[in-house]
């Protein structure tokens, strides 16, 4: 164990996966750029060469398709998109092909590809450089979706994603890259489809994903002083979803806030709310609250940006609304 940043954890997972499995290769735009994808690909070319760590032209669809084809041929590619916004150009490859292939051919050809959709927002980047549309992918049958919120999960989920026999969309968040914690030095997996209980509480459950997990923990800390006991759960995998850990908690608290940094309409948070209503309607003490982006494109100017992205204060407010 040693203290590692989220970015270092991702970098280390890449390195160890490349080392342990000849089938693994990394392909995407910016591997060899001076920034090395926020340092997550730092040193990989030196260690493994340009044959297995491949920088590419800005051909999102073509490069994603190539990774999908290589996966069909038995490789374990990690293909990444420096921003999820750019990944829309590869939607046909991801949905029509990657996600549906195993089903469409009756389970004969699987596609063990890991697609890194990197979330990069803030600093007045505006709407085409700020999105995290998890729900669009979680909507599609045949692709798993994971959202690590901590350095430990960033490493363990990437290892599990690459070892999984199915397509996995791995959404890492640049706002978390500097976050540090103890992470094992060796290779380990965080199983896909298993949520994490981040902190225990009795009055309200907060299901949070991506950067809002930390914000939810902050909200829990703050509300402790007012005598409100908050339980925070990070599902980590949006699909397949560990609904049991959520239901168990809500069964205990009777209240739910879902903190999901994505647009509200047909969102992951609505899905969680629906699952909880279906199972626990009669024991809920208050309506489920969702903390999301406003249903607007994302603005550039700092004051607008601040108003746009939710943080712990929005979660605190949502909690107080249903606890009072």
């Amino acid at each position, binding site marked *: 164990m040693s203290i590692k940043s989220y970015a270092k954890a991702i970098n280390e997972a890449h390195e160890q996966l490349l080392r342990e499995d000849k089938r693994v290769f990394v392909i995407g735009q910016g591997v060899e750029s001076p920034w090395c994808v926020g340092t997550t690909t730092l040193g990989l070319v030196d260690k493994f060469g340009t044959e297995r760590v491949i920088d590419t032209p800005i051909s999102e669809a073509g490069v994603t*398709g190539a990774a999908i084809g290589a996966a069909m*041929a038995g490789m374990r590619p990690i293909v990444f998109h420096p921003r999820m916004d750019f990944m829309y150009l590869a939607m046909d490859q991801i949905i029509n092909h990657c996600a549906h292939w195993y089903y469409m051919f009756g389970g004969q050809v699987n596609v063990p590809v890991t697609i890194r959709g990197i979330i990069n927002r803030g600093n007045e980047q505006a709407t085409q450089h700020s999105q995290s549309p998890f729900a669009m992918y979680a909507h599609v049958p045949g692709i798993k979706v994971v959202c690590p919120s901590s350095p430990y999960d960033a490493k363990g989920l990437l290892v599990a994603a690459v070892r999984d026999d199915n397509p996995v969309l791995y959404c890492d968040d640049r706002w978390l890259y500097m976050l540090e914690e103890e992470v094992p030095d060796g290779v380990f997996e965080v199983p896909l489809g298993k949520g994490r209980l981040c902190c225990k509480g009795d009055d309200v459950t907060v299901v949070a994903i991506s950067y809002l997990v930390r914000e939810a923990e902050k909200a829990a800390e703050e509300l402790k002083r007012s005598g409100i006991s908050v339980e925070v759960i990070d599902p980590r995998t949006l699909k397949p979803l560990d609904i049991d850990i959520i239901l168990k908690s809500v069964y205990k608290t009777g209240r739910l806030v879902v903190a999901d940094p994505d647009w509200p309409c047909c969102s992951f948070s609505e899905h969680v709310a629906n699952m909880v209503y279906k199972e626990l309607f009669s024991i809920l003490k208050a309506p489920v609250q969702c903390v999301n982006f406003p249903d607007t494109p994302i603005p550039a100017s700092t004051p607008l940006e601040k108003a746009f992205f939710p943080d712990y204060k929005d979660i605190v407010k949502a909690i107080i609304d249903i606890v009072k």
Partner: protein
Amino acid sequence: MGTYSIPDSEFSIHSIDVNEMIILLRTMMRIRQFEETIADLVTDHKIITPCHLYTGQEAVSTGVCYALNKDDYLFGNHRSHGHYIAKGGDLKAAMAEIFGKATGCARGRGGSMHLCSPEVGIMGTSSIVAGSMAIAVGTALAESIRGTGRITAVFHGDGVPEEGIWHEAANLAGLKHLPIIFVCENNLYCTHMSIDKRRAYDNIPEMASAHGFSSKIIDGNNVLDVFYAARDAADKCRNGKGPIFLECRTYRWRGHVGPNYDVDLGLRNQDELNAWIARCPIKHYSKFLITQGILSETKVNSMLSAITDEINEAVNYAINSPYPNPEELKNCVFKEGKG
């Protein structure tokens, strides 16, 4: 189609033995009979899945696939019955798939447009017309990283270079010198639209060359020429001299989808269709083999009769096969376990 010249070549014999020449004829005849039978079954409403027939183009898939090894990869499109048969896919399993049966090559999940036979390198055909281009580049990339010598052939229509991903895939293949053959089956139509209404120039091979391919235009109705070009292309790919682009000029007799000819819809004229039917790749080639004394007319007829039996047997197999069980509807969304 006045602006599009059609290479009208003679048959010639170059390093190919008699048995190989007969196999080429037999494969084309199998595809033709398969498709003609399907056309009848669609007309009789026995088949529901949309069938995009390949009639008239048989020389392309036959010539190309005969130059490939069993473990080389093939990718196709919505019009892939011919690709599947030529590459060695099981005929009964294809027929059962088209009937929507559990014994189908895609277990009844794919229908006519989505055929699969991984044991002969067909990893699945996509009905998104340019959808396979980059994926095919991916199998080529994988084998290039592994250094196995396995190559990839991807068949696409003349409409596909009008999609952006064709260019992305071509550039990647050219950039990395990948072992891949792009086989453009230029049948002069993309759905209802003729090529002169869709392209500013008759320049598809030039575009491929601009992306780093060695390119060639071939008479797609001459199975020997297609085979020679594909054999040469496969050799080059195996020797690190890929990628290769082959534009095979040909014609689909039937309409975009289904058994009709699209003449009734005013999409093309009867004279054009008649001219291409007169250039039938099978009729001409069998005549050539007979003239050369390689086959007799009787032998050709007995081959045809054996193929008809085989197709009928496949139809019976398909009809008598069970449908997929609706209880299995949700199976195979995800693969269980780890590889």
